[in-house]
C-alpha cells in the first residue's frame, strides 16, 4: 500500500520535474516571431542569432499602449534591418531581421504591469530564461529605475530604455550598459514654464499628478522652469496611479491660482478629465496644461474634445509635416494599418522606435558581433540619430547615456482633418533640451518627488526666451 503511494508521489515529482525541465531552457517556442536557435550559449561569433527581448506593459494603467510600443520597436527593425511583420498584430513578431549577416531573433515581448516588482520578474524571465542578449524596455518610470539597477548588476547584457521617463534611471543610477534615446519626463516639460509665465501671464500655479517617479519628473521640469523665472507653485496634489475616483483630489486643487499643470497619465487621465468636468462644470483648458499624455492619440480619441485649448509638450508633434515624419507614419501604416499608424505620433510608439533604430545602428557599426557586449555598449554611447532614424529631430547622448533632443510645445485645437478627433497645433520648438536643465538637476540634487524640486527663483534654463517659433503646414 505504502509503496504504491510512494510510487505515485515519485511519479508526481517526476512530472513536476519535466514541467520545470522544459521551462529551464525554454527557448524552443518564443512567443515573438523569428526562428528559434538550438544553442543557448552566449554568442561566440559565427552565424548565431542576436537575441533581443522587448519589455512593455500589457496590464495596469498603461496596458493599452502595449501594441503601439511593440509596433514602434518592430518598425525600427523593419526600416533598418530588412524585417517583415510576422502577422497582423505587432506582437505577432518579426521575420527576416538581419544586421551584419546576423539574424536578429526577438525572443519574447515581455509584459509588465507598471510595478517595479513585475518589471524585474519579467526582465529576469527575458534575460535569464529566454536568454536574451539585449533588452529594449521598459515602459513606466518606476520600472525604468528598477531595470537600470538590474542592468548595473549584469554588465554582460545591454539595455535600451523603451519609454520609461523617470529622471533617476540615467541621472542617478548611471549604469554603463543602460541607454535612453529619448528625453526624460522633465525634458518633455521644457518650455511650458516659460509659456505659462511669459505668454499666459501665470504668476501662481498648482500641480496635480500620479504619485510615482514619472510624474514627479514630469512636473519637476515644469516647477524648475516656472519657478526659476519667478512663478510660484502653491499646491502639489498627488493621486495614486490608476486611481478611479479623483473627486477628493480635484477638490484639493486651489481655486485662487492662475493655472494648473496636470501630470495624470494613462487610463487615469481619462477618468480625471471626465470627473473634473462633472465636478467643476467644465475643463477650463485655457488655464490648464498637461504633460505628455494630453495629446497622445489614444487620449485625444477618448476625451480630446474636452482638452481643446490646453497646452502640452513632448518630443513629438503630430502636425509636423516633414518628409521624415510623413514617411514614418506611412511605414507604420504599411506594416500594421491605420489604427497603429494613428498612434505613431504617441511618445510611446516613438520612444520604442528610436530605441530600435539606435540598436540597429550600433549593431551595424559592430557588424553584428556581440561576443563582447562592451563593444556594442561603446558603439551605443556614441550613436547619434538623425534624418529618418529620428523623424522628430536629432538625438545625441550625454555622458549618462541620456538623450539630448528636441521638444515641441503644442496646443490642442478643434478637429482640422475631419476625422472627428481634435488635432494638435505646434507653436514652438526647443532644440537640444538636456537632462540637467542647464544645471538645475544633477546627480547630487534630490531626486524629483512629492516636494522636490523646491520652488525657487534662479537661473532659468537656457531655452527660456529662446524657443523657435514653428508653424507646421501654415
Amino acid at each position: 500500500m505504502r509503496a504504491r503511494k510512494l510510487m505515485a508521489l515519485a511519479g508526481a515529482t517526476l512530472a513536476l520535474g519535466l514541467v520545470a525541465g522544459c521551462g529551464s531552457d525554454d527557448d524552443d517556442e518564443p512567443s515573438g516571431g523569428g526562428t528559434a536557435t538550438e544553442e543557448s550559449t552566449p554568442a561566440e561569433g559565427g552565424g548565431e542569432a542576436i537575441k533581443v527581448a522587448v519589455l512593455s506593459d500589457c496590464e495596469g494603467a498603461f496596458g493599452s499602449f502595449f501594441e503601439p510600443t511593440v509596433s514602434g520597436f518592430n518598425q525600427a527593425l523593419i526600416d533598418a534591418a530588412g524585417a517583415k511583420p510576422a502577422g497582423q498584430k505587432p506582437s505577432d513578431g518579426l521575420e527576416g531581421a538581419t544586421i551584419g549577416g546576423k539574424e536578429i531573433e526577438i525572443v519574447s515581448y515581455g509584459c509588465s504591469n507598471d510595478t517595479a516588482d513585475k518589471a524585474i520578474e519579467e526582465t529576469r524571465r527575458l534575460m535569464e530564461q529566454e536568454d536574451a542578449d539585449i533588452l529594449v524596455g521598459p515602459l513606466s518610470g518606476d520600472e525604468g529605475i528598477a531595470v537600470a539597477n538590474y542592468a548595473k548588476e549584469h554588465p554582460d547584457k545591454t539595455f535600451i530604455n523603451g519609454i520609461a521617463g523617470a529622471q533617476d534611471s540615467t541621472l542617478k543610477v548611471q549604469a554603463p550598459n543602460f541607454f535612453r534615446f529619448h528625453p526624460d519626463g522633465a525634458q518633455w516639460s521644457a518650455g511650458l514654464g516659460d509659456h505659462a509665465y511669459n505668454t499666459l501671464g501665470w504668476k501662481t500655479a498648482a500641480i496635480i499628478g500620479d504619485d510615482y517617479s514619472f510624474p514627479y519628473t514630469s512636473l519637476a521640469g515644469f516647477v524648475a522652469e516656472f519657478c526659476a523665472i519667478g512663478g510660484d507653485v502653491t499646491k502639489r496634489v498627488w493621486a495614486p496611479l490608476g486611481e478611479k475616483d479623483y473627486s477628493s483630489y480635484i477638490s484639493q486643487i486651489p481655486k485662487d491660482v492662475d493655472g494648473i499643470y496636470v501630470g495624470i497619465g494613462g487610463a487615469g487621465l481619462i477618468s480625471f478629465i471626465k470627473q473634473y468636468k462633472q465636478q467643476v462644470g467644465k475643463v477650463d483648458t485655457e488655464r490648464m496644461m498637461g504633460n505628455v499624455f494630453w495629446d497622445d492619440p489614444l487620449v485625444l480619441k477618448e476625451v480630446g474634445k474636452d482638452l481643446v485649448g490646453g497646452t502640452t509638450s513632448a518630443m513629438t508633434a503630430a502636425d509636423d509635416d516633414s518628409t521624415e515624419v510623413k514617411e514614418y507614419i506611412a511605414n507604420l501604416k504599411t506594416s500594421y494599418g491605420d489604427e497603429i499608424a494613428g498612434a505613431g505620433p504617441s511618445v510611446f510608439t516613438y520612444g520604442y522606435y528610436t530605441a530600435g533604430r539606435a540598436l540597429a545602428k550600433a549593431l551595424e557599426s559592430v557588424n553584428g558581433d556581440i561576443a563582447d557586449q562592451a563593444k556594442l555598449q561603446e558603439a551605443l554611447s556614441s550613436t547619434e540619430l538623425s534624418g529618418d532614424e529620428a523623424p522628430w529631430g536629432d538625438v545625441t547622448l550625454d555622458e549618462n547615456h541620456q538623450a539630448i533632443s528636441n521638444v515641441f510645445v503644442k496646443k490642442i485645437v478643434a478637429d482640422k482633418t475631419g476625422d472627428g478627433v481634435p488635432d494638435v497645433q505646434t507653436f514652438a520648438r526647443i532644440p537640444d533640451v538636456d537632462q540637467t536643465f542647464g544645471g538645475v538637476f544633477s546627480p547630487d540634487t534630490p531626486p524629483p518627488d512629492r516636494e522636490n524640486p523646491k520652488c525657487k527663483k534662479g537661473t532659468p534654463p537656457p531655452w527660456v526666451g529662446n524657443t523657435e517659433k514653428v508653424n507646421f503646414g501654415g
Partner: protein
Amino acid sequence: MTPVSRGRSSWIAIAVVVVLAGLAPLVFTNFFVSVILTKALWLGLAAASLIFLSAYGGMVSLAQVGLYGVGGMVYANLVLADGGLAAAWNPWLATVAALLIATAVGFGFGAIAGRSEGIYFLMITLAFSVLVYYFFSQVTQLAGFGGVNNLDLPGLVGNPGLDGTSLYYVTLVVSVVVFLGLRYASRTPFGLALQGLRDEPARMRALGFDVTTHRVLAFTLAAFVAAIAGVLSVWYNRRISPGSINLEQTINILIIAVVGGLYRLEGAWVGGLVYALLDNYSRDWTPEIGNVLGPDRFNTIIGVVFLIIVLLSPGGLVGLWERVSDRVERGRPTVGPGAEGPPQQALSSEVP
C-alpha cells in the same frame, strides 16, 4: 490503513519532498531556482499563515498580505536602502525588529478582528490589508508609491539577483521549520482547543475556554508566519513598494491557498508552486484567439485553472491528491469527499 502508518508515510513523504527540493539547485537553472522555486516557497509561507487560520481556526483572513507588508516595510525602512528611513541597521537586527513589530501589529489586528466571524471577519481583515496599503502609500517618509529600493541584505543570502541558491536554501529551511512548527502547534492543547472552537464555539465557551483569546493568539501566531514571508519576500525582490502588497496580491495569496487546499498546510506550498509556474510560463504558452484575448491573456489561464481546481475539488490540489491516493489504496471509489479524510477535513466541512 492505521493512523500510525499514515503518520509514518506522511513523514517519509515530507522527507522525500525536502530532499528533492534540496537537490533542485543541482538540476535547475539559477533562474528557475530563484524566480520559480524561491518565489513559490515564500508565497507558500504567506499562504500557510492563511491556511493555518482557516484549517484550524475556521478564520479565512485577508489580512495576511497586510501583515507581511508590515514585516517587509519595517525591514526595508530599517536597513540601508534607496528611499524610506534608510536607518542602516544591521540586516539581522532589522529582521528581528520586523518580525516583532509585524507580530505585534498582528496581535492588535487580531484583538479587533477576533470578535467577529464568517463574512464579517473576512471584511474586517480585508480592510486591514487595504489600510496597510494606503498607509505606506501615503506616508512618503516610510515608502510612498515608489517604494523602498536596493535593500541591504544579510551576507548569508548574498546577492539573490546574481546567485539565488543561498536564498533558496534559506527559504526552504524556513518553510520546513514553519510547516513542522504549525503542524506541531495544531496538536498541542492550544491547537486542539482552537479546532474545538472552530467547530463548536458555544460548547467550548460552556466548557470554560476563552474563545476570543484563543482566536487572537492564533491570529498572532499566523501574523508571525506572515511576517517571515514578508521579510523573505523583500530579500527576494530586494525592494518593496505598496504595489507589492496591494489588493491584487491579497487576492493572489487567497487564490494560492484555495488552489493548494484550504484544509491542509502543505497545500500552501503546492499552491505557491502552481501559481509561480503559471504566472511565469503562461505568458509564453497561452495561445492567442483572434482579438478576443488581449496581450494580458495569461490571466485567463490562471483564472480557468483556478475555476477547474475549485470545481473539481473543494479541498484544492491537496484534497484532489488525497482522493486519488485513497482510491489507489482501496481500489474503489470513496463514499464521499472527506468521509474518511483526515480529521480536520471532516470537521471543517461542517464549517460554513
